[in-house]
């Protein structure tokens, strides 16, 4: 599992959903959160943050700049090629998930989700990173 001290950026246009994601992460044991209400703000934070974020959890469907836009920007920058990126999507957007995978999303989670669901996804991402490192 991830080290509980990692820096997490939570991106969602809905206040309630940012609170929910943060709450579930706190239940797992994480402590360091930053919130952003859309992809553009998130991108700015990602570039400026020192030390850099260790994990992005982003909603897909947001006005202004979507989660997919954010993912594109992140992956286009060599500094963030391997930055763990978890996308949260509504059921209706499931068919578009293939597109996100192509663009390099680390994993995705379908709403509504539970704390167990989020934990599983984070573990899967962590394993993937570890095995990539080993290889």
């Amino acid at each position: 599992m991830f080290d509980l001290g990692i820096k997490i950026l939570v991106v969602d246009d809905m206040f309630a959903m940012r609170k929910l994601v943060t709450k579930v992460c706190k239940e797992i044991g994480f402590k360091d959160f930053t919130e952003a209400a859309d992809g553009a703000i998130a991108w700015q934070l990602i570039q400026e943050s020192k030390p850099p974020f260790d994990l992005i959890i982003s909603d897909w469907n947001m006005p202004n700049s979507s989660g997919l836009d954010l993912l594109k920007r992140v992956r286009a920058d060599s500094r963030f090629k391997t930055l763990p990126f978890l996308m949260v999507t509504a059921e209706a957007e499931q068919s578009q998930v293939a597109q996100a995978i192509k663009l390099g999303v680390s994993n995705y989670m379908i709403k509504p989700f539970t704390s167990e669901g989020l934990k599983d996804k984070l573990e899967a991402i962590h394993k993937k990173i570890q095995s990539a490192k080993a290889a």
Partner: protein
Amino acid sequence: MATENQSTENEKICVLIVGRTPAVDDGIKGILPIVDIKEMPMNIDALLDPVEPMPSIIICGMPPEGVNINEVAQLLSSQYLGVTNLLVCDVAAKLHRDSLLKNGFSEVFMLPLDKVYLTQYLAEKAASIRKKGKVYKSVKTGDIDPGDDLEFDTFLYLPLNNKHVPYTSAGAAIPQKKLDKLKSTVISNLYVSANQMNKFYEYSAKKLKSVQGDTTLSETERTEKLRNAVRNLFGTMFSELADSTESGKAIVTEGQNIVKNLINAKAGGKIYEKILLLSVDGNDLYSHSANVSSYAALFALGLGLANVEDIALAGLLHDVGLSRVNPAIVAKEESQRTPVEQVAYQNHVDYSLEKIIEKKLVVSDLVRKIILQHHEYFNGSGYPKKLVGARICVEAQILALADRFDELITVSEGKARIKPIDAMKKILADTEVSSKAQFDQKLVKHVLELF
């Protein structure tokens, strides 16, 4: 092993109410004796702490200022995964049913319009959780063939006593004689308990397959589908959200599809049979609008009028302006309204036309004219313009006639059933008395000849 949220027969069902409103209280009245209520204000911080044990049903009221209802929907569906999650909102609320459902509500009830649906939904839900209690669903008698062994019990509804009485038992068939007797007493619906409805659907699907070698819809399903279509149409029309030209077009197309469905179902057969076939069972505005629309189209077809589709579309839309009238006034009988309230009620005609403009619906001049004149009466006692006689277009007269006809034949609690032909005879008799002569006697006679 029993889990925490599993209810047994004797346990009460846990209902979580988020943001309690009088409308919510009104909606849960029927199931109050069997529920335990937990309450929560509608604010995000409170909602982040889920209640224990897990509720069986969540009912949300209207969101207060500053709370985004879609956020509440998403939050609740995550916090209470798989729990039925209902929104009870005001019909004129600036909300779209579609997006609310997309964001996680299991159902959205717009009151007062959806009152009947909410009551039925909760009663059914409660009965299925407790595996106890009976809820009845109406099925068209036309879907049942004499002599077929039925695997479900059937019931008759007695409106005067508001009771369902056993008619036939599972395993038995309904003989031709009995069915004919039902038809002659103008009972177009039998009732089946909700937990046996799947057996009815199996039976009707099998029957349709053997007749047509293909699965189409039974009459019961067709009217259910129709009423749902009207409900969706009204949901969009009643919302006070601004609409684009595109959505206006979509609404008209939806309305026209409903109308075509009504008119297609009328090919062949006697008018009397068709009324039995078409009537949507229910004492709510959706059923009323669907019925007025189909009866008006039926009369217009019988009289050989050219603009049947326009008449039917006007029939669907004629009362959409009611969303702007105080629901308490709408619910009252005309005789119980004060003069001021009556004027407020009469404004619905103008509101219906305003709605059509605001929602950017492109409809013909005739549709607008029919709606404008649908409460004008032949003797000049109508409104808003108190038009007399032939100054009211014949299409509007037909719609008004269909409106009155539906009012007379609709089955409702505490009211004796009346046969369609007797209803029309009563309207004809009223044309003899000038104070009651709301319709052209000649027109009513022509329509009566169709029966």
